[in-house]
């Protein structure tokens, strides 16, 4: 089952996948045990002449323990899952680390628009760069997305990044990630947003430090010089 997950290229991806496998093992064991019991009982206790059914009501605590104790074990395992999952959730959605790159994400039926500040990190200073559908980020850096929707609810999802966040119109909603592997990954809208919802796709392009500097150089040749940035170093 784990093999069906797409390649993980996110700093917190392993935590999500770990919770996934933890749940998989726990519920998988219960599932197989329960199915095996049903099948076994169906064969073992099929009608045979001369063998009446047992008269067991399960209404004494002693008998009911056969279902209550497994129930109790389920409670304990549930809390185990809650704790592991809670940690991963907090890491991804609550404790967002300081970002080296801030990008504005604008979702509008049926496109993604990514707005970059200049290398000085300042938006609306006359050197913003707009990219339609392509999100360029440096590998190994914390990227913070400030997302807005112009119309309906959209959801920003990058399966390879184990990231998903709905964008509710009227609010600015933040998300972050740190890519671990350079490459191109799909961005998709995963909240039904109208007739061309399925076309609302984008590409996340994770660049090595050198390539990202080159990309920056292309878009802000003068600013890059002004900020005195060296290749491979991204100024906040």
């Amino acid at each position, binding site marked *: 089952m784990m093999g069906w997950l797409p390649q993980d290229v996110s700093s917190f991806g392993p935590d999500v996948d770990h919770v996934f496998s933890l749940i998989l093992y726990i519920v998988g064991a219960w599932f197989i045990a329960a199915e095996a019991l049903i099948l076994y009982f169906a064969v073992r206790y099929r009608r045979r002449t001369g063998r009446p059914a047992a008269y067991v009501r399960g209404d004494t605590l002693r008998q009911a323990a056969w279902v209550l104790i497994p129930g109790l074990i389920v409670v304990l395992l549930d809390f185990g899952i809650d704790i592991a999952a809670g940690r991963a959730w907090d890491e991804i959605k609550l404790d967002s680390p300081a970002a080296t790159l801030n990008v504005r994400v604008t979702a509008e039926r049926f496109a993604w628009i990514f707005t970059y500040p200049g290398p000085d990190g300042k938006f609306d200073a006359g050197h913003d760069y707009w990219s339609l559908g392509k999100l360029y980020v440096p590998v190994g850096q914390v990227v913070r997305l400030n997302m807005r929707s112009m119309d309906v609810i959209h959801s920003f999802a990058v399966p390879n990044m184990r990231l998903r966040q709905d964008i509710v119109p009227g609010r600015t909603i933040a998300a972050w990630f740190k890519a671990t592997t350079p490459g191109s990954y*799909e961005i998709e809208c*995963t909240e039904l947003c109208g007739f061309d919802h399925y076309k609302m796709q984008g590409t996340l392009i994770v660049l090595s430090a050198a390539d990202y500097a080159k990309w920056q150089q292309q878009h802000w040749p003068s600013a890059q010089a002004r900020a005195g940035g060296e290749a491979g170093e991204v100024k906040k």
Partner: protein
Amino acid sequence: MSQAAALKETGYAGHGEALGFWRKYVFSIDHKTIAKQYLGISLFMALVGAYTAYAIRWQLAWPLTRIPGVGAISPDAYNSLVTMHGTIMVFFVAMPLLLGAFGNFCIPLMVGAADMAFPRLNMLSVWTFFTGGLVLLASLFVPGGAAAAGWTSYAPLSANPAYTTAVLGQDMWIVALALEFASFLMGGVNFLTTALNVRAPGMSLWRMPLLVWYEITASALFLLSVGPLIGGAVMLLLDRVLGTGFYLPAKGGDPLLWEHLFWFFGHPEVYVVALPGFGIMLEILPVFSRKPVFAYRALIYCALTATALSLIVWAHHMFVSGMDPRLATPFSVTTILISVPFAIMVFAMIATLWGGSMTFETPMLFALGGLASFLLGGVTGIFLGSAATDIYLHGTYFVVAHFHYTLFPVTFFAGFAGLYYWYPKMFGRMMNERLGKLHFWLTFFGFQAVFIPLFLVGVAGTPRRVFMPVGYPLFSALQPLQVFATVAAIVLIAAQAAFVANFFLSLKYGKQAQRNPWRANTLEWSTDSPPPHENFPAPPQVRRWPYEYSTPGARRDWMPQDEAAEAATVRAAS
């Protein structure tokens, strides 16, 4: 209690005069006729729902090709199909089948009443429901097409007519749902009142069959949860037609409000459907195992616990919605905790089989198949209830596979189990076993073959509600699984012909049913098949709980609830 008082109490006040055609078959106040009306509507709507499923699956497997019997569909039409499929299956199939048909048919019979507490209200409820169904079906034919914002109708997509091509269609969707809600509110009041106030002498609450308990628990849950959504739906309609802005940020509204109102009802709704489904399985498993149901009282407490918990889990549909992320873990805990009462129910069902003397007639096959299938739906819910994994799985085919694995078993496996089981009581004839078994095996394997591939498609990350999943480079390699699921879906739908044929042929050619063909204990089996207008000649005297099977030392292995005790070895009823 005097006999006359008892008669009055249980509704035997005598509306047994000869009735004309219209009063007998159309505007009937007999709960059995009303149950059959709900049954007929739900089975018809199930065919419409299956038709939408077929069109959806075809488009997913072979995008943009002409769908035989449908034609090529546009992305708008696809969104309408998805919306209508969900709406029809949940509100116009599962509810009328599990509550409308089985609740109406079984509750008065099982508690030994002559009819529902409010027979006229009952009639009003079925005709209100019928009208809702007509409005929904009509919306398929209006300009702009049917509603296309998903069965969840998230605002602002649903709130501003500019966002979907469906304008009138979305309004009609709201009206249809309002009528449906009104209908089941009336039905729910009737269920609760009948089970609590119109029971036969001796039928204490702790002697009520589990199906009755589960039906009234579901009704109470529906009554508790639907109110906010009715308010919410009115606000949605006002946004659309009067230009208010409850959900429109530009006018100061908040789209998340709709999500909260919708899921505060929407999640309990799952249990409104699941509990009667479980109730049906819990009636059938003991009969065909010839064993008392295991842990009767614990099963009732489980239903009540699940009901209470289900009111505080709704935000698990909203982990990534943009609500305060600190809410996720509390809702995650309550959500995962709800697995406990359901786990105990499942364990009790399995324990009921232990040591039994099982036979595998069609009702038993469907009950066991439903149990075995529901397990997968139940355990996969943990992945989604846990907020961390939901980040990845939310909105993917994993969700689609998960909820079909919960709702299909309780609606169709339990529903068919119930139909094969109570058909002799409803229509006075037996259904054909051979066709029934064929129907079961095709349905069982067909169902698994549709949705197991979709779990894999979902784990791989494919989003749901997209017109062409093959259009995403990341998922195009999964297309063979989509094709496999579609072929299986066509087999699954075609297999229902075995049921339709069996249903209609048995009406005419089925073997005449005895009063108690399954040798079961609940009260409905103590009267004629089908029961006369007021069910019992006189209120039955209830003497024991409903699951007295294979009592040691007894003359035979069942002991109807109203049969006079004939052996000293019979344990006192609980």
